[in-house]
């Protein structure tokens, strides 16, 4: 069945077959705006998704990630947007992102922020937000693809800080030059094979890294980890 959605301020139709996909996307349903494009998955799209997935998933999960993949490529091509693998929160209406390879503890660190600064923290998206450039500014958008705990909201918040997270016994935060985070940034996004699209993505990422404050954030799992990060990113900026 065809449903109409608005994600990252882009309205589109999608042909949905599985209940799982319908459920995770239902917060993003719209009916009163014209669609810019349609997503209809082919058998090859589903087969490709299964091939790319490291785990055995349900058909509905394959469908939902296949739709996300198509959506992201369309956005990259025509709407100055890209996917960025991170846990993103809003504090004081500014987006703070924690990025790292899976298993490092993005969500664990996000949880420490909630525990210590709960009233100030809104989760934008815990795993797969979209970043979009509008009039030269970069915004973090909530999406239906929200990670294991399904945390996130249908909101957009201007990008402020990007933390490259790693584990460490001792907590540390410091500003980091964009030239030092090139590979770590590129590894957290879907990279197109088409040269033209890859060029667009690199231009977007380059501007994104220029706009946001980049931090090298090394943390353990104690409250102090969130405190030093909060002090540097939020308090010192006030």
């Amino acid at each position, binding site marked *: 069945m065809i449903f109409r959605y608005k994600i990252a301020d882009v309205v589109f139709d999608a042909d949905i077959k599985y209940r799982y996909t319908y459920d995770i996307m239902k917060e993003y349903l719209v009916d009163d705006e014209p669609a810019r494009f349609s997503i209809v998955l082919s058998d090859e799209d589903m087969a490709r998704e299964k091939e790319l997935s490291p785990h055995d998933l349900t058909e509905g999960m394959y469908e939902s990630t296949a739709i996300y993949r198509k959506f992201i490529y369309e956005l990259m091509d025509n709407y100055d947007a890209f996917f960025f693998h991170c846990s993103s929160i809003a504090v004081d209406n500014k987006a703070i992102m924690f990025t790292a390879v899976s298993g490092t503890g993005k969500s664990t660190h996000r949880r420490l922020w909630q525990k210590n600064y709960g009233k100030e923290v809104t989760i934008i998206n815990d795993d797969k937000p979209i970043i979009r450039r509008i009039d030269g500014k970069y915004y973090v958008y909530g999406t239906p693809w929200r990670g294991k705990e399904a945390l996130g909201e249908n909101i957009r918040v201007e990008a402020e800080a990007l933390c490259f997270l790693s584990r460490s016994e001792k907590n540390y935060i410091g500003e980091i*030059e964009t*030239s030092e985070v*090139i*590979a770590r940034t590129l590894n957290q996004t879907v*990279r197109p*094979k088409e*040269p033209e699209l*890859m060029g667009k993505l*690199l231009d977007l*990422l380059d501007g994104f890294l220029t706009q946001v404050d980049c931090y090298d954030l090394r943390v353990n799992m104690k409250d102090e980890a969130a405190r030093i990060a909060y002090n540097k990113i939020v308090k010192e900026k006030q």
Partner: protein
Amino acid sequence: MKVKDGFLLRSFGGESIVVAVGEGSEDFNKLITLNSVGAFIFEKLRSETTRDELVNSIVEAYEVERPTAEKDADIFIEKLGEAGLLDD
């Protein structure tokens, strides 16, 4: 010699980087950063160029002595070669 197809040179994060596109681009081990001379050499090697021609164009563009240009050319030819970017 010349660089293979399927690589993109781009200014990114304050550096010049070379990334793979097309088949094999999902494996990101091929990320290479180049300084401005490196990027210049990469662009020259987009079309078939001999070492001598390369050295001449570096001398011209950067107003350096020939031995310096030769050294630069050799460093980057080796770097690009090691990364598998050159057709022989």
